[in-house]
C-alpha cells in the first residue's frame, strides 16, 4: 500500500501539497446507472407477476430466469467494483518536489508517471460542458520538459485552483533550487 507520509523515493523535507482523485460525480454517474440497471429485474418480476403469473411457476423457465437474474446481479456488482477501483486507484499527487500521476486502466494496465517540479514548463486547466461548469471539475494538464511528456489530471475538482497551486509550487521549487547568483525562470502565467 502507498503511504502518503512516505511516498516511494521520498526526499527529505518532501510533503504532499495536493492529493487528487477524479470528482466524486464521475463514478457516481456510472454507479447510479448500474444501480438503476439492478432495479430492472424487479420491475420485470412485478410485471410478469401481474401479466403472466404462470411463467413464474414454470418448472423449466423459472429456474432459468432465476439463474439469469443471479448472473445479471453478479455482472452489475462486478461492474460497480471495477468502476470504484478505477476511481480509487487513479490518483494525482503533488508534493513540494514533484508531481506523480498514477492511473489504473482495467485489470492489467497501470501507468505511473513522475516529474520533478523544475521540469514543469506549462500548466493548463480546462472545463468542458455544463456538468463540469456547474460542479467545478475538469482537466489539468502539466507539460513537462523531459521525456515524461504531459501529466493529465483528469476530471479533478477545482482545476483552476489546482493549476495555480502547481504553478506556485513550481516557482517556489525553482527559487529553492536556483544556483547562487542566477535569476529564476518565471513559470507562472
Amino acid at each position, binding site marked *: *500500500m*502507498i*503511504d*502518503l507520509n512516505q511516498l516511494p523515493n521520498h526526499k527529505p523535507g518532501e510533503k504532499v501539497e495536493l492529493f487528487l482523485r477524479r470528482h466524486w460525480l464521475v463514478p457516481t454517474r456510472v454507479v447510479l446507472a448500474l444501480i438503476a440497471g439492478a432495479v430492472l429485474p424487479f420491475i420485470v418480476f412485478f410485471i410478469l407477476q401481474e401479466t*403472466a403469473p*404462470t*411463467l413464474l*411457476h*414454470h*418448472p*423449466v*423457465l*423459472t*429456474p*432459468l430466469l*432465476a*439463474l439469469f*437474474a*443471479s*448472473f445479471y*446481479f*453478479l*455482472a452489475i*456488482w*462486478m461492474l*460497480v*467494483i*471495477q468502476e*470504484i*477501483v478505477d476511481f*480509487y*486507484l487513479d*490518483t494525482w499527487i503533488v508534493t513540494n518536489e514533484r508531481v506523480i500521476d*498514477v492511473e*489504473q486502466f482495467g*485489470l*492489467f494496465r*497501470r501507468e505511473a508517471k513522475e516529474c520533478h517540479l523544475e521540469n514543469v514548463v506549462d500548466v493548463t486547466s480546462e472545463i468542458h460542458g455544463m456538468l463540469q461548469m456547474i460542479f467545478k471539475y475538469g482537466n489539468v494538464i502539466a507539460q513537462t520538459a523531459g521525456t515524461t511528456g504531459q501529466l493529465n489530471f483528469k476530471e479533478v475538482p477545482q482545476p483552476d485552483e489546482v493549476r495555480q497551486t502547481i504553478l506556485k509550487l513550481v516557482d517556489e521549487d525553482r527559487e529553492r533550487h536556483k544556483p547562487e547568483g542566477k535569476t529564476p525562470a518565471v513559470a507562472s502565467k
Partner: protein
Amino acid sequence: MIPSFPIALFLIPYALFLLVYGFFLFFNLYHLRTYGIKGTVSHGLGTLFLVGTVVILGASWIVLSRYDWGTPLNVQDVTGSFTNASVLNPYDRSEPTPQP
C-alpha cells in the same frame, strides 16, 4: 421420441461465469491491497466488495436450490415449437395443433 436434456446443463456456463467473476474480484482486491492508499478506506472497500459478493451468492444459492434441476428441457421447445400453451401451462405437453 423428442430428445431432451436436464436444465442443470445451464449451470455449467453459470459456473464458468463464477470463475471469471472470482478472477475479477481477486485482481481488484489485489490492486486495492497493493496500490491503494494506506488507511481504512482501502480495507473498507475490500470488505464492501466481499460482503456484496457473499450477499448475492447467498441469495442466489437460496433461490436456486429450491428448483429441481433435473427437469428435462425438450429440444423441440428450444427449436421453435415453443407454443404459448406449453409456456403458460407447463404441465400441458400435448403436441401443437397442426395448421390447416
